[in-house]
């Protein structure tokens, strides 16, 4: 279980998180949506321990990770798999090397066991036969699928997806969503997705949380969110320009 309790974070004078309170249950998939630059990635970075809050706590399975020393924090990180926005694949390694890397560094599996696991992971994400390609030779969608395979290779309890479909076409986006559902069914992880793919992400997720002005303004099932009366949620779902979410000022 992941819990955010009164989480605050500012960068210089800019307040990004302004008292986040959210509980994510075991094995559920929750999607956090909100406007670009609204602090969604900042929130996810607090789960990994890449950022420390100015105030508040992040509890993973009851342990406040914001107060842990580096070694203890690493033990928590071993439970995590992360799919970064751009994939964050290591340029110097091929697809096989990228997926095998966490296994080689964090487990005592032998070479053939690692090879077997990597090949299975590649098959799961539909990239069989691509193991010798380098990240630069792959399309955006392929890179994200490799990143997903790498995030899942250690069979983590929690998987964080930072905009898993940004920049992908609608067909690849749908197949990425199906992939998330299928892997969730297979591995049973707790999933936290940051996504703007409204309403298509509703097919994948159990609950949706809306982040606006640094706080969670609404949490609910996709149906509840679709029927929400909150002005920010309504504006975000319909993509309207008028509303509490500040639209881009074209005259500036």
């Amino acid at each position, binding site marked *: 279980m992941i819990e955010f309790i009164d989480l605050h974070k500012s960068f210089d004078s800019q307040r990004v998180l302004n008292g986040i309170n959210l509980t994510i249950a075991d094995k559920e998939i929750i999607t956090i949506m909100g406007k670009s630059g609204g602090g969604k990635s900042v929130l996810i970075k607090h789960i990994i321990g890449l950022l420390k809050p100015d105030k508040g706590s992040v509890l993973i399975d009851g342990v406040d990770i914001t107060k842990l020393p580096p070694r203890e924090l690493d033990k928590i990180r071993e439970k995590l798999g992360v799919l*970064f926005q751009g994939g964050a694949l290591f340029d110097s390694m091929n697809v096989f090397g990228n997926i095998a890397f966490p296994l080689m560094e964090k487990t005592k599996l032998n070479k053939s066991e690692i090879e077997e696991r990597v090949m299975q992971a590649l098959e799961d994400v539909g990239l069989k036969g691509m193991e010798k390609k380098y990240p630069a030779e792959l399309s955006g969608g392929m890179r994200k699928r490799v990143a997903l395979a790498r995030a899942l290779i250690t069979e983590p309890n929690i998987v964080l997806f930072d905009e898993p479909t940004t920049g992908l076409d609608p067909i690849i986006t749908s197949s990425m969503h199906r992939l998330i559902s299928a892997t969730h069914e297979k591995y049973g992880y707790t999933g936290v997705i940051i996504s703007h793919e409204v309403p298509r992400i509703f097919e994948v997720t159990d609950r949706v949380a809306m982040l606006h002005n640094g706080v969670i303004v609404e949490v609910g099932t996709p149906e509840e969110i679709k029927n929400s009366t909150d002005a920010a949620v309504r504006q975000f779902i319909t993509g309207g320009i008028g509303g509490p979410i500040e639209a881009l000022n074209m005259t500036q």
Partner: protein
Amino acid sequence: MEKLLRFLGSWAISTLKKMGHMTIFFANAIYFVFAPPFKFNLLLRQIRFFGNKSMLVILLTGSFTGMVLALQLYYILRKFGSEALLGPGIALSLIRELGPVLTALMVTGRAGSALTAEIGMMRISEQIDALTAMALNPMRYLIVPNIVAAVIVFPLLTAMFDTIGIYGGYMVGVKLLGISSGTYFSLMEDYVEMKDVIVGLYKSLSFGILVSLVCSYKGFYTGYGAEGVSKSTTEAVVMSSILILVWDYFLGSVLL
């Protein structure tokens, strides 16, 4: 007046903050150099990175430095009727001073800048965050192999620079200016002591640590986007070059 004081105060605070940040990074890096497990594959890769990238530049600059030294020293020594001292003059200048300094400057320009850019690109494409998220310490994987590789490679490249420089001087002094080959080498044997070689070795070792730390630091904490990486790369080269010359003076005065 108040404005000036405010400006000076905020400048002093931000400079102190930066220095503190850098010191913590350096201390961490040095700690992980001695903390197992060691990543030998990455070390070999970085030895190749430093050595392979800089070898040709070192050969070229070494030979021309020796040749120019021969010309200039011959001109000066002839005024005192001491042309015979050309060999030891070139050898001592190269071994004690020019070899370590010019090698360090060349490696900074060639491999140090590439190192900053590579680590910087890893930072902005979240590869360093990915390592951290996998519970793997980026210091151990990205920084330590560079420091150890530089400590191994800098003295070797310096030795190569010195040797090529001495032979460059030989080509000009003996083949062009007519000094006898025997004089050139035998007086060198008489005047160059082990102490001189050790001074050069200390210098190249410390330059290796300095350059690898500065270039790694600048890449590790690069700014945003391509502009940030480009700025960090320039800063790494400028800062390393200045520190090499300052540290050279300091070591030179201590080890004289």
